[in-house]
């Protein structure tokens, strides 16, 4: 029975179209992921060279003025993308993976964006994640919408019912063959991806695989449920395409609009202005206005003298610090708002498998919002360490060549990716079981 069903399936036009579409777009998407990794790699190398070169060149000119030298020097922190991120590029095209900062105020530097074509950002990356989330369901729909109705409409259903008692089993087997075919393509694409993109077979990759399988099972259950109403082909096609539009376009977009409006972030713009004013107004004030705040934060530098009527680097970097301090509260509020956006989105996603899959792919790949916020936190810490390391040397008027500059190479940041198997799997499993159950209940009538 299975062999016959397989044969008849392989002879259909839809099989050929699906196969060619998924394989070709899938492979293109893997190469787009590859190019993304290459681009990051290139940028990372360029950043390391840039730092070496600029230290070397600036040392020539400003050896006797460390304060001035460090006004210019930029230190890079690079978020090393995990290779799996090529499968789900996520937010990492919008949020830069590397940031080169001076030891001046961090607030004015850490939100700098990288260059990317906004048309591309808008249309989104054609990564394998997209193929799985958008195209796989379409192919499933195309292969299953007439699972029953084609037999009915061609008149073969009567012959079938005459020949077999297990009508339900027949439909179920037909469905199984199609679902297995899609799984086959998924596995082939993931194998190609793991070898082309050199992705380690670890828990993240496994989790991504399982998430994909569950996601496809969800769509299979949904198609099965539709078919179980035993309606005509046109009706099924329409309803399934409408579900696809609602689940992959309309509903997530509505939630997104809602989130953007509900948690607006005017703090971003405020923090930017507060930082500048917090720093610049100090130029026109007594030195104490700066130094009191600075020494409060860093009592270890209290013993340094700050000349009242002339410029000094301790005063200058104190002023820079005051800028960050002025923006600190608003900046924290901004981070909170972004976190709230994330929490809300994740909550809604528990009920919508498309959104759940997308957010999970991103977090498994380390390309989600949280991962970027962690990077920003690490960058702030990196900046603090740099300053604390350089401050005493600047304040002591050390010459620049007393510092071992070879220690100041670009620094790499490794993403921490945490995930919970239950939270990852359970929502989709429950929804799939529920939808599948509805389908089975419907079919009892058959």
């Amino acid at each position, binding site marked *: 029975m299975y062999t016959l069903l397989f044969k008849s399936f392989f002879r259909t036009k839809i099989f050929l179209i699906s196969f060619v579409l998924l394989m070709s777009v899938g492979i*293109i998407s893997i190469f787009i992921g590859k190019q993304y990794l290459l681009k990051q790699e290139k940028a990372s190398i360029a950043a390391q060279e840039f730092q070496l070169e600029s230290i070397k060149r600036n040392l020539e000119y400003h050896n006797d003025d460390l304060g001035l030298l460090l006004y210019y020097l930029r230190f890079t922190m690079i978020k090393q993308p995990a290779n799996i991120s090529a499968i789900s590029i996520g937010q990492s095209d919008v949020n830069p993976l590397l940031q080169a900062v001076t030891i001046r105020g961090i607030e004015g530097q850490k939100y700098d964006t990288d*260059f990317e074509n906004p048309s591309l950002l808008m249309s989104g990356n054609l990564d394998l994640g997209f193929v799985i989330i958008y195209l796989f369901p379409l192919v499933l729909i195309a292969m299953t919408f007439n699972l029953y109705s084609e037999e009915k409409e061609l008149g073969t259903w009567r012959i079938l019912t005459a020949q077999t008692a297990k009508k339900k089993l027949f439909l179920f087997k037909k469905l199984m063959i199609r679902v297995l075919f899609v799984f086959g393509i998924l596995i082939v694409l993931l194998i190609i991806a793991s070898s082309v993109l050199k992705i380690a077979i670890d828990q993240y990759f496994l989790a991504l695989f399982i998430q994909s399988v569950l996601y496809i099972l969800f769509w299979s259950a949904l198609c099965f449920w539709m078919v179980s109403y035993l309606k005509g082909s046109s009706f099924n096609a329409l309803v399934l395409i409408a579900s696809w539009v609602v689940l992959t376009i309309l509903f997530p977009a509505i939630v997104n609009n809602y989130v953007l409006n509900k948690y607006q972030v005017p703090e971003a713009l405020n923090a930017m202005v507060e930082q500048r004013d917090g720093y610049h107004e100090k130029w026109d004030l007594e030195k104490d206005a700066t130094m009191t705040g600075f020494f409060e934060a860093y009592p270890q530098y209290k013993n340094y003298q700050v000349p009242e009527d002339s410029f000094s680097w301790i005063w200058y970097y104190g002023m820079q610090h005051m800028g960050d301090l002025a923006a600190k509260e608003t900046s924290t509020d901004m981070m909170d708002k972004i976190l709230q956006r994330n929490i809300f989105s994740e909550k809604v996603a528990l009920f919508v498998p498309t959104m759940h899959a997308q957010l999970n792919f991103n977090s498994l790949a380390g390309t989600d919002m949280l991962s970027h916020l962690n990077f920003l936190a690490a960058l702030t810490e990196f900046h603090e360490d740099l300053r604390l390391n350089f401050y005493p040397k600047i304040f002591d008027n050390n010459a620049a060549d007393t510092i071992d500059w070879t220690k100041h190479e670009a620094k790499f940041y490794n993403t921490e990716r945490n995930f919970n198997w239950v939270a990852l799997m359970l929502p989709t499993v429950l929804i799939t079981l529920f939808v599948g159950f509805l389908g089975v209940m419907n079919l009892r009538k058959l």
Partner: protein
Amino acid sequence: MRRNVVQLIVLQFWKDAFRSKVMLLASALMVLLLLFSVYSGWENYHDQNHTRHVMQDEVQKSWENNPDKHPHRMAHYGSFAFRNKHVLSVFDLGMENFVGNAVFLEAHKQNTVNFSEASMSTGLLRFGEVSLAMLLKIIVPLLIFYLGFATIARERENGTLKLLIGQGITRKEIVIGKWLGLWSLSLTFLMAIFLILLCFVFLESHGSLADTMFRYSTLLVSYLLFFAVLSAIAILISAFSATAKGALIKLLGIWLLFVIIVPKSLQAMGYYLYPTPSKIEMETAVEHDLIQQGDSHNPDDPHFKALKDSVLIAHNVEKVEDLPFNYSGFIMATGESLSTEIYLKHQNDLYQVYQKQNNLERFSAFINPYTAIKNVSMAFSGTDFQSFLHFKAKAEAYRYKLAQDMNQLQMDFIPNRGKSGPNTISNRYWKEFPPFEYQFMKTSTVFKNEVIALLALIVWSILAVFGLLNLSTKLKAI
């Protein structure tokens, strides 16, 4: 072709459409979506623009309230430019949320425009956004195809087509009648949305109302054409398919190709074919070129040494301190113009590559009407890339003027090193410096930018008419 017969067919089409439950459900859903889009589009526009206006004013006030000081300090104090939303962004969000909103303008440095909504969003942004235009571009076409797939195919399957022709109704009347029926039905959504939009335009248009109305009318006409083309495609596919089912499957396939697969694949292909440098690579290249030209940090740099000598000779003095203007102000002015020129050249090169990346999709407007309407819609709503670049260019021009005006003040009023005189100037100079005021791109420029998309839309319209006329003679009754 008899007018009353065509009218009759149109009327019948409307009646049939509203008899179906799916249509009622879809209409109800559309109304809800429409209300949501209006609400969220308006709130977004209104709140964000309000915040930005307030900020822009505050920034100007704090600029003016600076006390007397050295002009170069003011050049570093700098200013900010906040990007205003065009009132039509309520209609089409376009790239609105993917481009930055605020930029710090200071001497010596072109900062990036930061804080795009995308940079503060979760992964959900990838699914797109709901806007009035999105309903018209994506959802209504699906409805048109749904309403149109059966028009002719089912009549033929049922044998009613043969009856109609038998009763003396010409093929042309049937084709045109069905097409007008479908088109007019789709226009109900269009009109509802554009009426609401008109209210916004009158309520909120800050700039020239005439200019906004010009954009508005172009959008309206473009969508009219777009729906006419889609209706024609639906009728043609329906007529050339053996069964209604076949027509539906084909139309759904076409919709997926037009709206999702082709635009996204072409954009991705453009990205693949024309790689762009990252920011750090471009900055390295800029710095490299700058050092080649002249390194103002290097005391022995030949370019700046030659400049110094020529200035000394021109003013017939021996030391820079004896020049009639502040020499470091002069050097900074020269450096600013040099570095800005080099930076803009590199930036321009980068945008050329973007242009190449986008062209693949842009020219596909001739094979995909969705791309044509997408580009027209964004451009005339002031939410396309060119509109962003226009803002960015104005902000950069303001930055440059700010830096150079401060340099000029320094040259004019600050004494050279070792000479007597005050080291600060009066704060009335800050008050005299005009605030940043952004004017939107002229509509005529938008037309120039979108020639290809508009042309494609016209070509599609002509093709649609030809297709329908062709069908009027070839329509098979059985």
